[in-house]
């Protein structure tokens, strides 16, 4: 009978982080880029909580609380910026946003 070890959680958090990173790199839709950023933060959260649980220290969990706060504000501000940009440029694709080129 195989049990779940902290290493499994760490591998999973690495996977979540790398999937999010891949999303940031390959997607051109800025909305999806923001969502992938959220996924990366989630991977970090999983790692922090599993470390906090294994070392029986509450600090990691409290950090996750603050990370969630920051992520929520980041999404709100990012989406507001995106809407403002869409009103200016009529596009949310990152290749269309080249302010310096023309």
């Amino acid at each position, binding site marked *: 009978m195989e049990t*779940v070890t902290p290493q499994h959680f760490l591998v999973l958090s690495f996977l979540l982080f790398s999937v999010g990173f891949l999303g940031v790199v390959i997607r*051109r839709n800025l909305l999806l880029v923001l969502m992938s950023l*959220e996924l990366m933060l*989630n991977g970090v959260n*999983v790692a922090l909580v599993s470390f906090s649980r294994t070392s*029986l220290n509450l600090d990691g969990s409290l950090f996750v609380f603050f990370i*969630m706060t*920051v992520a*929520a504000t980041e999404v709100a501000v990012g989406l507001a910026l995106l*809407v403002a940009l869409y009103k200016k440029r009529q596009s949310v694709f990152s290749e269309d946003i080249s302010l310096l080129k023309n």
Partner: protein
Amino acid sequence: MIVARHPVPAALFMIISLVSVAALFVLLEAFFLAILQVLVYAGAVMVLFLFIIMLLDVGPDGGKVSRIKFLSGLAGSLAFGILIILLLQFSGIESSESGSWLAIDNVERVNGDSLLFSSSLKNFGFGLFTKYMLPLQVAGFLLLAAMVGVIVLSKKSLSEEEI
């Protein structure tokens, strides 16, 4: 989620993965964080995302996917999968009979200088309002600043439209 071309299915897949992360938090006995994950992420953040997706009416990612791109993506994910399997094989993960999970103690709050992990909300709040008092207030201020910033941003774009 990241291979979905259309944003709406991507957002729905994202909700699934966020709820799964909440389930993992339950497994790690961080119940408050699990509730918070569902409420904040799967509730507020993803609703905001879906609202913006439908407000802007964004379609799928433009451009055809070329054959070489597809092949390189396939090769990359294959190599990544092999890497993960090797990592799982050789990183010394063995099935120990739950020796690495220490039992948690919900009565004791602090051990010397450090706060003890516990599943009870009382201890979470205790840590938040003693050791992390200043970060908590900074987080509250950050939320206020984000709220004001979002209002200013949306207002400015509205007034630009009127001109």
